[in-house]
């Protein structure tokens, strides 16, 4: 990006003063190197978001920001319903409540490596992944409605999870305000055979070694021990969320004029929070959040079943489950006044700091775990929410490395077989139904995740706790 268009606030904060219809400034958090690497479209998108009605304080972009749809991926914006604020289907995206969870195994690297190939094969066989895969849980109409209302709580009641997991999932595994009646027949049909499926693209299930600890106290509180292994699962609300995104985006594009909203980009399609369409979308979107929470809980359950075949203690307690494509109602302090805001995070992770009321008691002194998925070669990070993040970006942080290369360019640069072989030489087993899919997700197609998390820490968004190195990666 051309940095001359920004006012530099610090080494990692860059401001764009309001111009051309922006209601608030835009702020991007990143080092100068990451800023220069960012697509110019991030500038366009973060400033377009600042033009939406009812936006509060600023439109933000995280260090992993890249060109998205309407919002940049890595975009954060909060809206006040009492000031004509909007809810945007484009600001949440197609994969509603896509997110990450990490389970602890308390198994050493040596224990896992001793059965690495067999474990990889079993996980690939047991957890449905890739286009055309199906889950074993078929939902009739009644079960579908119960799932859309209950989220991970529903999954656990059905025996697909453990009650103690709920404390480690945002909103205890169930988004309130879900309205199954706002979920179309098409969306329901698309989900009928997709419960407990991983999906494809950048979704994955990884067995990872805790390779480095940066904050010993917080790591201990999270249950992370150097040399032990964890399992991280990245996926979302599957076909149901995709269909809800598709349908409401269209409705909002068509009705924007009716609501007197001038869209700087059609993909920013939105409706006033206090409108029939806005309320209907919120009800559907929260149903999709519950679908994603249930889906990840089921995949966690399937993973536990596989581990139990290999190890005596296969409990795999849940460290945390956090979504990064959402709109949530939260209370934030604005100029000394606490206000209820609708916070959109599109490819951005909520990152509550220490002592936040929304955190479970055991984690409260340390801040919320923020799980940052890297590429399958580079590894991932666990961060912790910081107090400063509330002021910086409504308690938000990055969500991943962010792509530096298109899928097309990646397949021209690497062959899938070579990527698999190279990673195997590094001790990482890749299991995927598609070698082309592997090539598209090659480590070199992503930015340096270390630079992204260092940037997030320097910006006061979240601090580093641990680095996770992959041993097994199941990709869809």
């Amino acid at each position: 990006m051309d940095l001359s268009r920004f006012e530099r606030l610090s080494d990692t904060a860059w401001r764009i003063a309001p111009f051309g219809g922006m209601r608030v400034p835009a702020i991007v958090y990143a080092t100068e190197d990451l800023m220069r690497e960012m697509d110019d479209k991030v500038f366009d998108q973060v400033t377009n978001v600042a033009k939406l009605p009812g936006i509060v304080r600023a439109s933000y972009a995280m260090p992993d920001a890249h060109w998205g749809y309407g919002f940049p991926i890595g975009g954060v914006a909060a809206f006040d319903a009492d000031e004509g604020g909007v809810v945007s289907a484009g600001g949440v995206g197609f994969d509603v409540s896509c997110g990450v969870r990490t389970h602890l195994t308390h198994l050493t690297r040596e224990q896992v490596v001793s059965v690495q190939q067999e474990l990889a094969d079993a996980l690939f066989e047991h957890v449905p992944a890739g286009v055309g895969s199906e889950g074993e849980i078929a939902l009739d109409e009644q079960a579908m409605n119960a799932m859309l209302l209950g989220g991970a709580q529903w999954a656990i009641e059905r025996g697909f999870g453990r009650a103690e997991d709920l404390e480690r999932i945002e909103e205890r595994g169930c988004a309130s305000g879900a309205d199954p009646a706002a979920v179309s027949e098409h969306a329901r049909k698309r989900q009928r055979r997709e419960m407990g499926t991983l999906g494809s693209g950048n979704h994955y299930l990884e067995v990872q070694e805790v390779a480095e600890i940066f904050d010993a106290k917080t790591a201990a509180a999270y249950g992370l021990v150097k040399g032990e292994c964890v399992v991280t699962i990245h996926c979302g609300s599957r076909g149901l969320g995709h269909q809800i995104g598709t349908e409401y985006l269209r409705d909002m594009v068509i009705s924007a004029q009716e609501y007197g909203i001038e869209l700087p980009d059609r993909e920013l399609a939105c409706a006033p929070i206090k409108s029939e369409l806005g309320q209907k979308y919120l009800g559907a979107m929260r149903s999709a959040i519950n679908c994603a929470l249930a889906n990840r809980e089921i995949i966690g359950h399937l993973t536990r079943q596989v581990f139990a075949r290999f190890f005596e203690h296969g409990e795999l307690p849940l460290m945390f489950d956090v979504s990064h494509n959402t709109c949530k109602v939260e209370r934030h302090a604005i100029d000394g006044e606490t206000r209820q805001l609708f916070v959109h995070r599109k490819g951005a992770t909520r990152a509550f700091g220490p002592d936040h009321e929304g955190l479970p008691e055991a984690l409260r002194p340390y801040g919320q775990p923020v799980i940052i998925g890297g590429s399958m070669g580079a590894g991932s990070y666990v961060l912790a929410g910081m107090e400063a993040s509330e002021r910086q970006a409504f308690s938000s942080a990055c969500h991943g490395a962010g792509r530096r290369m298109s899928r097309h360019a990646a397949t021209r640069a690497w062959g899938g077989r070579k990527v698999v072989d190279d990673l195997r030489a590094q001790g990482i087993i890749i299991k995927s139904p598609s070698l082309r899919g592997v090539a598209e997700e090659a480590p070199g197609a992503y930015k340096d995740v270390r630079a992204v998390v260092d940037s997030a820490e320097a910006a006061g968004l979240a601090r580093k706790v641990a680095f996770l190195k992959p041993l097994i990666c199941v990709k869809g």
Partner: protein
Amino acid sequence: MATTGDQVATGRWEHFPHDADIGVRGYGASPGEACEQAALAMMAAIVDPATVRLKQEVDVDLEAPRLDLLLVDWLNALIYEMAERRMLFGAFEVKIDDNHLKGRAFGEAVSRARHAPAVEAKGATYTELAFVEDRPGLWRAQCVIDV
């Protein structure tokens, strides 16, 4: 029926880059042919369309208030049919009259082993959306697909 990427000068498709996802573009002598080619471009992001046997047909009938919305609706209808029927498509026929589209997709049940699909299309977006006649007899239909 459009089955290849470059049959005639107008009947062809291509991809264009997007950071995280993929842009699809179809050219045709008519709006219908451009839609057929855009659909092939979308399929080519998922699988090699030539590997898909044309064993089953699925009909699609759509109306939209604007031509460009019709393109998004068409691609989203195909994404829905693929997901719901567990199918992949390899060829398309489209006729457009005003803002009414009648389409037919030809394909077969997805085989993970034979097709090895690279990605799943989540939805067609309004990003980089264009459905225009660039010059008489050359229609361009394009948008970004979230994968």
